[in-house]
């Protein structure tokens, strides 16, 4: 199923539990629990997420608490407030974004260099 048809959690809607699927998801409301997508996730400004998040590309503009794992890339935009562990091969944090937590990018370090937390 292509992502022509949008999947949206509206600003006055709360979902508690598990959201999974392979369709792009836009959150303007609130989600608590777990989000596992084989597709893209956007948390809009005003949206709030308190969940373990897995997505292909994650774009964060709202409030997000919890580990966020993106298969391809993760963008923490200027309007967002994010806390938790971010994991993705490519991570952008824009000027103005507020972020507290850990970042993991799965890079190959040159021989002799050890991970900071190893």
């Amino acid at each position, binding site marked *: 199923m292509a*992502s022509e*048809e949008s*999947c*949206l959690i509206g600003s*006055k*809607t709360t979902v508690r539990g598990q959201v999974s*699927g392979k369709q792009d998801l836009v959150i303007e409301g609130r989600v608590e629990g777990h989000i596992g997508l084989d597709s893209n996730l956007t948390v809009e400004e005003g949206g709030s997420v308190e969940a373990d998040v897995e997505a292909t590309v994650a774009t964060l503009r709202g409030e997000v608490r919890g580990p966020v794992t993106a298969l391809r890339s993760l963008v923490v935009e200027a309007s967002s407030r994010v806390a938790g562990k971010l994991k993705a091969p490519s991570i952008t944090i824009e000027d103005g974004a507020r972020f507290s937590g850990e970042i993991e990018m799965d890079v190959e370090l040159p021989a002799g260099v050890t991970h900071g937390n190893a």
Partner: protein
Amino acid sequence: MANTVIGSSIVVDGEISGEEPLTILGTVKGKIAAASSVVVESGATVEADVEGQTVTVSGKLTGNVTAREKLELRPESKMVGNAKAPRIVVADGATFKGNVDMDV
């Protein structure tokens, strides 16, 4: 105001609550509590107790439904569960098993 849409390849396991119209094309298990309308589209699967102002079912719904205004079962719909609403429409072709309570 933008409606909430649960897309056809999305599965929600848990509780959905909110004040805006909710359209379900995918799968929802658990509980739905909406202050406004709930539409279960053709192809959607809902295994949940549903509460809404109006509830319209074209897909498959298993669970108890309480509509404060109206419950409508469209021709292709399949519903198993108890229905409680002041107005209930069951279209020709709809499949329904359960109790009906119109509060008379």
